[in-house]
């Protein structure tokens, strides 16, 4: 019998779906059947397709099992681990090898190469996969100047959102006068819809530590901080363990690998403030103050933490660094587009079939991302919009599916790459409601320093509330555009400057929905309760089964059992949709007035 390794995805999503119960059961069975020498169980970070969890991957056969339950464990052990036969009923759409599954075959995993493959809690596993080799090479064979040149040549740009060239940032910090210097990793992933940094920290924490240490060598820093949000307890736990292990193995500490270079990393846990993702606010928070942004210049590269030159990069940016030194800057820059190099990790969520984490070369189109990898929208639904870039981003319509995802193309169309959160919206979503949702978010997360942001965003939000409640006017739309321009141009930090984007982009591409809310007093997708069209019953299809009347909370649906048709009293209907869901014959539908 050949030796097999079972990789158990223990990312947050799979855990929540019951991965640890599956792990326990497998572990018991391996003991029970005496397979100690032939089967190894490995807990890994996120493997990607979260909607299919819990996930198991059996190596070296490279078979992926999906939606595994503890009671499936026995069959996997007996048939596959002992008998060498694949358990077909647990495969993803019958694919016997992971590499033939479309979700994986269209991806290019570089930053996520280790995630879902190695045990993040064992530094030996990271080292065995070439981990810390880049750092060793940098420390023994490269000058700080050569390191910065390599990062510049790679074309790597910041993955946190703005896309600033990483090499240039490193050079600014290196050139800035003042000692000591600091390296800060921004792991305050606050954009709703983004979870790539969480997955990297949970699945491959050493890659971030290695990237930070290379940066520290380049700019001459001896101390670094990782600012991670408190909402990620598993990421914090894995990072803490990784820092300790890296110190034990001499990859962090006063004298790294006997080279005389020293670097230490401390964790700082956030306390729940979205604005702390902004770099100057983040620094204020590390210093123990309210996370209020300040004006730049001076940039953190000149005057950052405690007034010293500080390099701030995001998690995914640091995780990219080791690839540049492992493969060389030329190989790195061979991937991507003319102006945007390398790969980007995206988080797919919302009304899409395959949710999860994916990595593709920059320049991949939205269509490839949402359809080829994401599997498209759910059965019977139509794609309406793709929200990309979180509260700072925009909503792109289905007509723009062939736009390549790079910093410039997205910007041209009114969205941003942002940190890479992609929320797919189908025809059940209301775009006015989505715009209102984002302004609710930014209004409550504004730090309050700048008046245009503090007052302007709630004013815009109130207008949207009026529109969604059926009290909007066409003047409101002009007012929204005016305010959007004002808030954008007069706020200090990125939060205020980009907060109007969801409104601007929905007005640009989905104006018809605003008009329907204002002119026809209808919310076409039925999301806005006050404007949702009432329900009606098709007399031909009704079988008088009484299901609708049973669930109707206001007795609007009425009739006599066995005597079709039932009817819905429009005046009593509160548009809750209970009858629509309850009807077994599809007889209930919304009244279409347009």
């Amino acid at each position, binding site marked *: 019998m050949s030796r097999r390794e079972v990789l158990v995805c223990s990312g*947050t*999503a799979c*855990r*929540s*779906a019951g991965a640890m119960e599956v792990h326990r059961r497998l572990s018991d069975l391996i003991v029970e059947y005496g397979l100690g020498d032939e089967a190894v169980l490995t807990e890994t970070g996120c493997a990607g397709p*979260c*909607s299919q969890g819990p996930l198991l991957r059996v190596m070296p056969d490279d078979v992926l099992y999906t939606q595994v339950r503890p009671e499936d464990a026995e069959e996997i052990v007996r048939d596959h681990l002992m008998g060498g036969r694949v358990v077909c009923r647990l495969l993803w759409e019958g694919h016997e090898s992971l590499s033939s599954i479309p979700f994986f075959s269209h991806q290019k995993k570089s930053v996520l190469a280790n995630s879902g493959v190695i045990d993040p809690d064992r530094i030996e596993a990271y080292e065995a996969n070439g981990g810390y080799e880049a750092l060793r090479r940098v420390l023994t064979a490269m000058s700080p100047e050569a390191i910065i040149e390599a990062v510049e040549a790679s074309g790597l740009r910041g993955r946190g959102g703005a896309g600033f060239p990483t090499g240039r940032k490193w050079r600014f910090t290196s050139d800035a006068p003042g000692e000591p210097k600091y390296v800060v990793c921004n792991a305050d*992933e*606050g*954009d*709703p*819809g*983004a*979870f790539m940094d*969480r997955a990297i920290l949970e699945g491959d924490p050493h890659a971030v530590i290695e990237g930070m240490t290379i940066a520290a060598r380049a700019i001459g820093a001896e101390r670094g901080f990782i600012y991670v949000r*408190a*909402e*990620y*307890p598993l990421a914090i736990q894995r990072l803490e363990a990784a820092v300790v292990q890296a110190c034990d193995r001499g990859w962090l500490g006063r004298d790294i690998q006997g080279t005389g270079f020293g670097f230490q990393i401390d964790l*700082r*846990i*956030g*306390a*729940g*403030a*979205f604005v702390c993702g902004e770099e100057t606010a983040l620094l204020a*928070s*590390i*210093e*123990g*103050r*309210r*996370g209020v942004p300040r004006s730049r210049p001076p940039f953190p590269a000149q005057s950052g933490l*405690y007034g010293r030159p500080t390099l701030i990069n995001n998690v995914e940016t640091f995780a990219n660094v080791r690839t540049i030194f492992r493969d060389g800057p030329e190989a790195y820059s061979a991937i991507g587009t003319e102006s945007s190099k390398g790969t980007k990790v995206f*988080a*797919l*969520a*919302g*009304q899409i079939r395959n*949710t*999860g*984490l994916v990595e593709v070369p920059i320049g991949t189109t939205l269509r490839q991302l949402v359809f080829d990898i994401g599997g498209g929208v759910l059965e019977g639904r139509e794609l309406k919009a793709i*929200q990309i870039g*979180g509260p700072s981003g925009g909503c792109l319509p289905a007509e723009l599916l062939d736009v390549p995802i790079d910093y410039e193309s997205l910007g041209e169309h009114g969205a941003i790459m942002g940190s890479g*959160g992609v*929320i797919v*919206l189908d025809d059940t*979503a209301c775009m006015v409601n*989505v715009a209102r*949702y*984002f302004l609710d*978010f930014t209004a*409550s*997360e504004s*730090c309050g320093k700048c008046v245009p942001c503090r007052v302007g965003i709630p004013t815009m939000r109130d207008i949207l509330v009026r529109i969604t409640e059926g009290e909007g006017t066409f003047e409101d739309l002009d007012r929204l555009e005016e305010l959007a321009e004002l808030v954008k141009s007069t706020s200090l930090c990125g939060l205020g400057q980009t907060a109007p984007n969801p409104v601007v982009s929905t007005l640009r591409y989905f104006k018809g929905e605003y008009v329907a809310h204002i002119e026809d007093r209808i919310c076409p997708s039925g999301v806005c309760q006050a404007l949702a069209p009432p329900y009606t019953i098709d007399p031909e299809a009704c079988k008088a089964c009484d299901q609708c009347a049973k669930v109707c909370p206001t007795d609007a649906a009425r009739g006599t059992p066995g005597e079709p048709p039932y009817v819905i009293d429009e005046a009593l209907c509160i548009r809750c949709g209970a009858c629509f869901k309850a009807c077994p014959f599809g007889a209930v539908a919304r009244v279409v007035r347009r």
Partner: protein
Amino acid sequence: MSISGVAKRIEAYAGRPNELIQALQLVQEELGYVPAEVQGQIADTLGVSIGQVHGVVTFYHLFRTRPAGRHTIRLCLGTACHVLGADRILTALEKQLCVPVGGTTEDGLFTLDVVRCLGTCSLAPVMMIDEDVHGRLTPERVFAILETYATSKEEPG
């Protein structure tokens, strides 16, 4: 841990105003909230003004100034959760627990909070109870989940 016990542990931060947030996190971890009197002690110990301490406590969402229940529920209101019906889950929670957002149930078992995004969007709608993530929620599942905390996890908090 008692309030006086916590006050002792704050001593470790004496004269280190830059570590105000860590000191507050320690207090919250031990007591479940940051009482007003402890805020005063922190100000004295670290050498910052009481205004600064209060400013930080009220700026960050995670600090509480009133005691929390044994279990803290944090319902995610992120984008994916929003479009997949987080508002219905919120209504179900409020109805089941008979408390508004920010409130604690009469028996002291649950505190209901909302958060902006838990970064578990692939499982939307999602909530966290203490450190456990519960995904793909429906109003019916919410009741069943709360039940397990109310009955099987009765260890002293």
